């Protein structure tokens, strides 16, 4: 073929695709929410999912028995909303709960959803061969049986305040009829993980690796058809590329805006930034162990010094400078949206003078160049920050200056997330600015800050905080059936950890989502903004996400 013929043919093809006519019509005009997402999903079987995108997609495909209410209460069954189960009943001794499945619930292939599916899902999640991250959360459950085809019954080892939450809201139900023939060890390689059949408000349409995951509304959904016709996750790893997609109209939703994006988005009348709460708390943790986990840290092993270093930080200034109004100072290791949060908790005040006095008292005297030392050891340490987080880097720079005012010399080291995780696990750091997305369960603080968590990888307690008093109070709170008394124990536990200052509690999250002005979100739940996606709408006459060809047509 001669080049002179080939080039016009290609140009014709491109131009025809650029033409605004017809081809994008129906799809573009239906209400499609195009979510620009930073990472592709890993596996859509909920028991195997470990990443954010897969969790979001999975939550629309697979249901839990019940959903927590917007108050995020996890104690007892108050506030929980029906999902697969339309009602439930407790045994008189509270050692079992029977969930009554909605008889209209069915899989997207038409097969009714039954108790056998719940039994299978439980078995898969606790299987060692599957290694589900959810498995340990189901440890309090002794067994699951079926009273009849619509009534799975959860049996517990012992009564506990959160047994209903653990049984009803940790497990997503997957179809036994499609998966039970697959050995547990082969489940991760099952084609189902990339082409799932769910029972949720949306049904799976397609997954283009690294590019797109698409779901369509299921008009036969047992709790009513969702309002948005289509949900599309469009993958863009680069934050700049993701923002350009939003600005150009190729996407109409992004779940997380960087502070600079919030400012930029105000210049685009077709877009809006929406603030929503989340469960993240950010803090600078002190490594109380020596470098490598041996002995005690020369600076942070001393509780009084940690308190002084906490009092030296003007946290309000850090938050208002770095995050403006999009975050607020954290009181302690929990977010204000956790049901046991108490705004009257005591806090260590910002007081550089008190900090200096404490350091003087503990033998840290000011030496040459204004840096304190105790014997030969200087009051000098390094703050570890993730290289991808400008917010945390800016916070570290501000704190560096504040510490200089009390005679502490601080260096800042930027590393990537895996390096940070590995260094913290090996206790090879002085201080680190971390963020933790908490579980709605107040008892989950035990997994994060207890003495047992101090030796475990991937917890918040990389600094090795260990307090018997805190452990005992949390244990008492977590086993207390009376909500009022439980709150009392939690308050005392929170007070203990704040007073011990294992970390400087910096800020707690709110996040900003960016979206087209026509997108009308339902309330965005702090633990999962996507929980009510089925109730979101897109305003009449507003094209949710334009197909790229429409964008071209509009410009022409």
């Amino acid at each position, binding site marked *: 073929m001669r080049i002179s013929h080939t080039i016009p043919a290609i140009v014709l*093809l491109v131009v025809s695709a650029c033409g605004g006519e017809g081809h994008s019509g129906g799809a573009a005009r239906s209400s499609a929410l*195009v979510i620009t997402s930073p*990472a592709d999903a890993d596996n859509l079987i909920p028991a195997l999912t470990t990443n954010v995108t*897969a969790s979001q997609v999975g939550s629309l495909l697979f249901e839990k028995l019940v959903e927590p209410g917007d108050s995020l209460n996890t104690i007892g069954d108050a506030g929980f909303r029906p999902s697969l189960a339309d009602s439930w009943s407790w045994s008189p001794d509270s050692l079992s709960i029977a969930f009554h499945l909605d008889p209209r619930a069915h899989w997207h292939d038409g097969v009714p959803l039954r108790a056998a599916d719940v039994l299978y899902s439980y078995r898969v999640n606790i299987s060692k061969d599957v290694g589900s991250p959810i498995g340990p959360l189901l440890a309090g459950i002794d067994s699951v049986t079926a009273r009849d085809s619509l009534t799975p019954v959860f049996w517990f080892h012992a009564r506990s305040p959160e047994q209903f939450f653990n049984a009803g809201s940790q497990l997503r139900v997957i179809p036994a009829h499609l998966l039970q023939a697959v050995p547990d060890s082969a489940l991760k390689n099952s084609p189902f993980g990339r082409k799932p059949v769910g029972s949720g408000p949306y049904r799976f349409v397609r997954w283009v690796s*690294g590019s797109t995951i698409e779901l369509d509304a299921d008009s036969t959904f047992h709790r009513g058809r969702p309002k948005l016709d289509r949900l599309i996750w469009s993958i863009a790893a*680069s934050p700049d590329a993701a923002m350009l997609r939003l*600005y150009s109209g190729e996407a109409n939703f992004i779940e997380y805006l960087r502070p600079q994006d919030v400012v930029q988005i105000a210049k685009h009348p077709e877009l809006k930034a929406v603030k929503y709460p989340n469960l993240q708390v950010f803090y600078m943790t002190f490594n109380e162990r020596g470098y490598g986990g041996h002995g005690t840290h020369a600076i942070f092993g001393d509780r009084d010094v940690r308190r002084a270093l906490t009092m030296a930080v003007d946290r309000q200034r850090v938050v208002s400078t770095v995050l403006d109004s999009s975050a607020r100072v954290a009181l302690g290791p929990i977010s204000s949206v956790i049901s046991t949060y108490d705004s009257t908790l005591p806090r260590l005040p910002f007081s550089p003078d008190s900090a200096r006095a404490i350091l003087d008292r503990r033998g840290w005297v000011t030496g040459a160049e204004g840096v304190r030392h105790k014997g030969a050891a200087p009051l000098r340490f390094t703050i570890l920050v993730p290289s991808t987080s400008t917010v945390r880097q800016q916070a570290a720079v501000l704190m560096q200056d504040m510490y200089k005012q009390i005679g502490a010399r601080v260096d800042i080291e930027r590393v990537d997330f*895996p390096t940070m995780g590995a260094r913290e696990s090996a206790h090879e750091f002085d201080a680190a600015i971390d963020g933790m997305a908490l579980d709605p369960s107040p008892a989950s603080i035990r997994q994060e800050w207890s003495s047992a968590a101090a030796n475990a990888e*991937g917890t918040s307690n990389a600094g090795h905080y260990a307090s018997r008093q805190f452990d005992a109070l949390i244990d008492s709170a977590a086993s207390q059936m009376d909500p009022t008394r439980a709150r009392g124990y939690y308050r005392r536990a929170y007070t203990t950890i704040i007073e011990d200052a294992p970390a400087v509690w910096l800020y707690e999250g709110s996040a900003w989502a960016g979206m087209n002005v026509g997108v009308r979100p339902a309330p965005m739940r702090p633990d999962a903004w996507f929980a009510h996606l089925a109730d979101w709408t897109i305003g009449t006459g507003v094209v949710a996400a334009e197909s790229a060809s429409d964008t071209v047509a509009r410009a022409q």
Partner: protein
Amino acid sequence: MGRLLAGRILQGLAVVWVVATLTFALLHSAPGDPFSYQSGRRIDPEIRAHWRYVYCLDRPLSAQYVCYVRSIASGDLGYSISKQRPVRDVLIDYVPRTLELMFLGLCASFLIGITLGVLQARHRGTVVDWGSRGVSLLFYSMPDFWLALMMALVFAYWIPLFPISGIEDVVAAPTYGWWQHAGDHLRHLVLPVATLALMTTAAIARFQRAAMLDAIGLDFVVTARAKGVSEGAIVRHHVLRNALLPVITLAGVTLPSLLGGAVLVELIFSWPGMGYLTAMAVESRDYAIVTSSVLITSVLVVVGTIAADLLYALADPRVRAQ
């Protein structure tokens, strides 16, 4: 010719082995492993330990290397932890997209580069020469990521001629027929291919210009001119044919730089190819993906270089004779 090929293949295998071993060593010497940072969900320590056992990550590095070499030798590229799929399946999705980008990028850069080189040589010392050299040098000296971002900003946002990123129109794609799919896909290719091409065109143009200027002064050109052959025919039939020989070598050399550039271009344009995949895998310490991607990349470079050598040998009888 046979000896030349055999020698090149042996050299290539050695290079691939060294690259694979170095990648393995460097990757494992970086702190962390695939389970030290899992976004989205807190992983119980027992589950992490179980996974490390399953994927042999709790064994000494030497044992892991033996496992790695054994699996590569048997054609098994391993299992991707971040994708939860065999690496072979992941690469089947991603590699063709990079090859497509590379092939078109290479073709475009050589087409533009050679054309520019010829023009510059024919119009040596004129505005055309200086102007085109300046412009191509400007693109050549721009940082890759900045050039890519500017291309997206200018031609997809300010003047929305092309889609900003991705491989398809995610909203309209399900309604497309095959030809609309093809057109849509081509449209999505324009900006990443153009960026890749702009990054390498200047070098090719300069090389081609120099080769042309060398050839223009040779005896057979003077003879042709003396025989009254038109200037256009001299350039097409005598100068260009001879000046193309050194540029063939450049194809083999350009391949690694294009592959390097493809990482950034794929990230900026959200083009889910091998560069994009590797960058994500490095962040998540997905050892199997990174080592396999680097392995394939080194094989591609070696094959490209061998192909260029062979082409050169085929084109030049003096090389064949050696």
